[in-house]
C-alpha cells in the first residue's frame, strides 16, 4: 500500500480491525482461525464479541494483544491500536504496548495469577515492566488500585497470595492489574464464565463502572447473550472464523438479521415464568424420599494439628415423584454436587435416610447396593473426561450392563438402539470418544446411563460445559427421554435459566441446606428466601424490560 493513501483511523475509534485473517497450521480442521473480519471499537464503548467455541473470538483477542502462538500468524489485514498498526510490529514494540495501551483479563482467575507472588507484587510488576514510577509510588498506586476494584482492606490484600482469595476477588485483582497503567483498551476474554452467577453480576457491574468512570474502551468476549444484554453497546457475532453480523446491541438483540444470530438468541435459556407440563404418569408414587441427609467433610489428622470440618450437606429433606424432574440449584460450594454423590452412593452419608422405591439405601453396604446400582445412573459434567479415551463407544456402553449380567449380544443390540435414539448414527458404536464433538459425547454419556433402564437419572451439571445451541439440544433430548421412558431426574446445575427449562420443581441450595423449594414459576417470580431473590436478580439479561426479553418474546 502506497504511503499517503493509508486509511487514517478516525479519532473516536480506539481499536480498528480491518480484513483480519489469521491462518492455522496445516492439518487443522480449517485453514483460517478467522477470515476477513473487520470491526471498530469506539472510544468509551463496550464491544461484545459473541460466538460459540471454535468461532475464533479468542484468537482475535490474542491477535490484538500480539500474543498469538508462533504457529498461528496473521496472514493479512490490519489491527490499529490507538492509531498504530500492530501487524508486523517488532516484538519489543508490541511488548511496550501490552499492559500500557491495551491490557487483558482472562477467563479463569484461579490460574491466571502466579501462585508464588503476592497480589501487590504482581500489580507493581506491570508498572515496573514499563518503567513507570518509583518502587514507593508503585506501591501506593497498587494499594489505590486494590481499593478501586472494591477489594476489602487493600493494605492487607497487598501482601496476600492469590490462593487466599476467592474467584471473584482474584478477578478483581486481575482487573486492578489491567488498569494499573490506565490503558486505552481493555480486552476481557470471558472474564465471568468461571464465576458464580452472583459474583458474575458484581464483576460485570465493576467493569461497567470503571469503563464509564475512565472512559475506557472495552472489548468483551463472551458466549452468553445474557451477558451481552447486560453490558454491550455494540455486538459482533462470530461463527467459525467469520463475522456474521454486527451492529448496536439494541439492533442485534431486538432484530437479529443473520440466521445464526437468531439461532443463538433463541437457544439462550430463559426464565419463562411458566411451569413445565409434567408427564402424565399413571402412578404418582414417590420414587425417592430423602430425609435429614447430612455429610460433613473432615480433613487433617485427628492426632496432630487442626482439623478442618466442612458441613457439605446439612439436613437435606426432599422427595421426588416418579417421572418428574427436580432441579438442584446452587453456587459453588453450596453442596449440590456432594448431594448428587450421596444419592448415587459414591460416598457414604453421615446421617439421614435415602428411601429409594421405599427402601432405605443410605445404610446399605456396597455389596448390598450393587443390585440397585443399575436403577440409579449418573450423567456427568465433562463430556471429555467422563468417557475412557481408549475404549470404543460400544465398549463404554456395554461394559456396565454386561457386568450386571446382560448377555453381550443383547447389550450390543440395545446400545445400537440407544445410539440412534440419542441422535447418533449406528456407526458410532465402533468409534472412539475423541472422534466426537462435545455435544455428541454428552449424547454418548446419556446413552450410557440409559443402558441400564434406570429409574432415576442424576445429571450433575450435564450441560454446563456445552455451547448454548448444543445445550438447548441436549435439554430437549433429556426432556424427550423422560417423556418416553418415564425416568425420574435430579438435575444439578448452577444455572437457574437451564433449570427453568427442564425442571418441574427446583430446590435452591445454599451452604449445604435447601433454602427454598417450589415450581420454577414461584422460584423466579415470587422467591420466598432472600438468597433466592439474590440469585434470580443476578441472572444476566433477565431484568424486567431487558433487551433480550424483547428479543425472545416479541
Amino acid at each position, binding site marked *: 500500500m502506497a504511503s499517503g493513501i493509508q486509511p487514517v483511523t478516525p479519532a473516536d475509534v480506539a481499536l480498528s480491525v480491518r480484513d483480519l485473517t489469521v491462518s492455522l497450521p496445516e492439518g487443522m480442521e480449517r485453514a483460517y482461525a478467522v477470515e476477513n473480519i473487520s470491526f471498530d471499537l469506539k472510544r468509551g464503548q463496550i464491544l461484545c464479541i459473541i460466538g460459540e467455541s471454535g468461532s475464533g473470538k479468542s484468537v482475535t483477542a490474542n491477535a490484538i494483544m500480539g500474543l498469538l502462538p508462533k504457529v498461528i500468524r496473521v496472514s493479512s489485514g490490519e489491527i490499529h491500536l490507538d492509531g498504530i498498526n500492530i501487524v508486523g510490529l517488532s516484538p519489543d514494540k508490541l*511488548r511496550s504496548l501490552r499492559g500500557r495501551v491495551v491490557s487483558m483479563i482472562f477467563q479463569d482467575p484461579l490460574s491466571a495469577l*502466579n501462585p508464588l507472588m503476592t497480589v501487590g507484587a504482581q500489580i507493581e510488576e506491570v508498572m515496573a515492566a514499563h518503567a513507570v514510577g518509583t518502587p514507593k509510588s508503585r506501591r501506593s498506586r497498587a494499594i489505590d488500585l486494590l481499593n478501586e476494584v472494591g477489594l476489602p482492606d487493600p493494605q492487607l490484600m497487598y501482601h496476600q*497470595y492469590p490462593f487466599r482469595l476467592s474467584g471473584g476477588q482474584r478477578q478483581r485483582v486481575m482487573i486492578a492489574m489491567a488498569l494499573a497503567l490506565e490503558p486505552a483498551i481493555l480486552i476481557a476474554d470471558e472474564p465471568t464464565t468461571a464465576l458464580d452467577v452472583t459474583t458474575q453480576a458484581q464483576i460485570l457491574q465493576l467493569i461497567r463502572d470503571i469503563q464509564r468512570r475512565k472512559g475506557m474502551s472495552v472489548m468483551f468476549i463472551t458466549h452468553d447473550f445474557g451477558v451481552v444484554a447486560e453490558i454491550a453497546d455494540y455486538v459482533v457475532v462470530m461463527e467459525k472464523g467469520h463475522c456474521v453480523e454486527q451492529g448496536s446491541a439494541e439492533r442485534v438483540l431486538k432484530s437479529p438479521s443473520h440466521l445464526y444470530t437468531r439461532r443463538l438468541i433463541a437457544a439462550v435459556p430463559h426464565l419463562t415464568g411458566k411451569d413445565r407440563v409434567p408427564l402424565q404418569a399413571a402412578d404418582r408414587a414417590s420414587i425417592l424420599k430423602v430425609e435429614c441427609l447430612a455429610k460433613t467433610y473432615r480433613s487433617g489428622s485427628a492426632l496432630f*494439628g487442626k482439623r478442618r470440618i466442612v458441613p457439605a450437606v446439612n439436613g437435606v429433606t426432599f422427595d421426588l415423584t416418579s417421572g418428574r424432574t427436580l432441579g438442584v440449584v446452587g453456587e459453588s460450594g453450596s453442596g449440590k454436587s456432594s448431594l448428587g454423590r450421596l444419592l448415587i452412593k459414591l460416598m457414604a452419608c453421615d446421617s439421614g435416610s435415602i428411601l429409594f422405591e421405599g427402601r432405605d439405601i443410605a445404610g446399605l453396604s456396597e455389596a448390598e447396593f450393587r443390585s440397585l446400582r443399575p436403577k440409579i445412573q449418573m450423567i456427568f459434567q465433562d463430556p471429555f473426561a467422563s468417557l475412557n479415551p481408549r475404549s470404543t463407544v460400544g465398549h463404554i456402553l456395554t461394559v456396565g450392563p454386561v457386568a450386571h449380567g446382560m448377555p453381550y449380544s443383547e447389550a450390543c443390540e440395545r446400545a445400537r438402539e440407544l445410539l440412534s435414539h440419542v441422535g447418533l448414527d449406528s456407526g458410532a458404536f465402533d468409534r472412539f470418544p475423541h472422534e466426537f464433538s462435545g455435544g455428541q459425547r454428552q449424547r454418548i454419556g446419556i446413552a450410557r446411563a440409559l443402558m441400564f433402564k434406570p429409574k432415576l437419572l442424576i445429571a450433575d451439571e450435564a450441560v454446563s460445559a456445552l455451547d448454548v445451541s448444543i445445550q438447548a439440544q441436549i435439554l430437549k433430548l433429556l426432556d424427550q427421554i423422560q417423556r418416553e421412558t418415564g425416568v425420574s431426574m435430579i438435575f444439578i446445575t448452577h444455572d437457574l435459566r437451564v433449570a427453568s427449562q427442564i425442571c418441574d420443581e427446583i430446590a435452591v441450595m445454599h451452604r449445604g441446606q435447601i433454602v427454598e423449594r417450589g415450581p420454577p414459576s414461584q422460584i423466579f417470580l415470587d422467591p420466598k428466601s432472600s438468597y433466592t431473590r439474590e440469585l434470580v436478580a443476578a441472572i444476566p439479561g433477565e431484568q424486567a424490560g431487558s433487551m433480550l426479553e424483547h428479543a425472545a418474546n416479541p
Partner: protein
Amino acid sequence: MSGFLLNRLSQSIVLLVIVSIIGFTVLNLMPGGPLAQFGLDPGMTQKDVERLAEQLGLNRPLWIQYLDWAWRLIQGDWGHSFRDGSSVLTVIGRHLSATLLLMGTSTALAIAIGSWIGIRGATHRYSLFDYCATVGAMVALSVPTFWFGLIGIYIFTLKLGWVPAGNMYTIGDGSVLDYLHHLILPSLVLSLVHVAIWSRYMRTATLDALSQDFIKTARAKGLSERRILLKHVVGNALLPMITLAGMQLPSILTGALVTETVFTWPGMGRLFLDSLGYSDYPVVMGLLIFSAILVVLGNLIADIVIATVDPRIRLA
C-alpha cells in the same frame, strides 16, 4: 506445621524400625555368617571360632542379637567393626568427608548444568539444542557409569596425561590444588548421569510452568521474556524439583559404589563394598541405618523447603 512435623517424625521412626529389621534379617540369612572366613584359616581351630562367636555374642538367637543391637543404637553405640575394632561411627566418619567432597561437587554441578539445559531445552523446544540435549541425556542414562569412568581415564590420564587416574590426593602433597586435580574427572563422570536426569525433569517442569495461564497474564502485562522466565517460570518449575533434590540428599552422603571403585576414591561407597566383602556386619548395618536416616531426612527437608517456598502450603 509442627503437627505435620510430629506426624512425619513418628512415621519415620516406624519406617526406620522396619528397615533395620529387614536389613538385619537379610544380612544374617547369608550363608556362613560373619565368622565363615575363619573356617578355612589353618591357624584357627573350631574351638577358637566358637570362642570368638561367644565373645561377640553371635551364638545367641537372632532376635536377641537384633534387640541388643537396636538398644545399643538408641543409646548411641553403633557397635564396633569386626575388622579393626574401631567404633562404627568412627569408621563412617573417616570416609564421610571424601564422599561429601566428591558427591557434593558432582551434585552441585549436575543441578546447575542440568537446570540450565532443561530450562533452555523447554524455552527452545524442538530446536537443535533441545534435540541434542535429549539424545545426550539418553546416552548418558543408558551407558553405565564405569564405562564413562574408564574411557575418561583412558583419554585424560593415559593419552593426555591431564589428570590422575584415581585416589583423592597425592601422598606427600595434599594441597587444595592437588585435591581439586584429583576431583575433576570423577566428579564430572559422576555428574553426567545426574545432569541427564535433572535436565529431563527440569525440561518437563519448565514446559509445565510455561503452559500455565499466569504466563499468558505476564505476557499480557508487557513483561520481557527474560523477566517472565526468571520471575514466573523458574520459580514455579523449581517447586517439583525440590522433592527430587531431597531424594538426592542421601546419595550425597552414602556415595557412589561404582565411581568410587573405578577411581579408588576412599568414600562411603567403597567402605560399603569392602565391609560386605569382609563380612563386617556391624559396619554394614551402620551404613544401612545411616542411609535410611538420610532418606527420611532428605524427604523431610524437601517437604519443609517446599512448605517454606510455596505460600499455598506454608499457610494452609
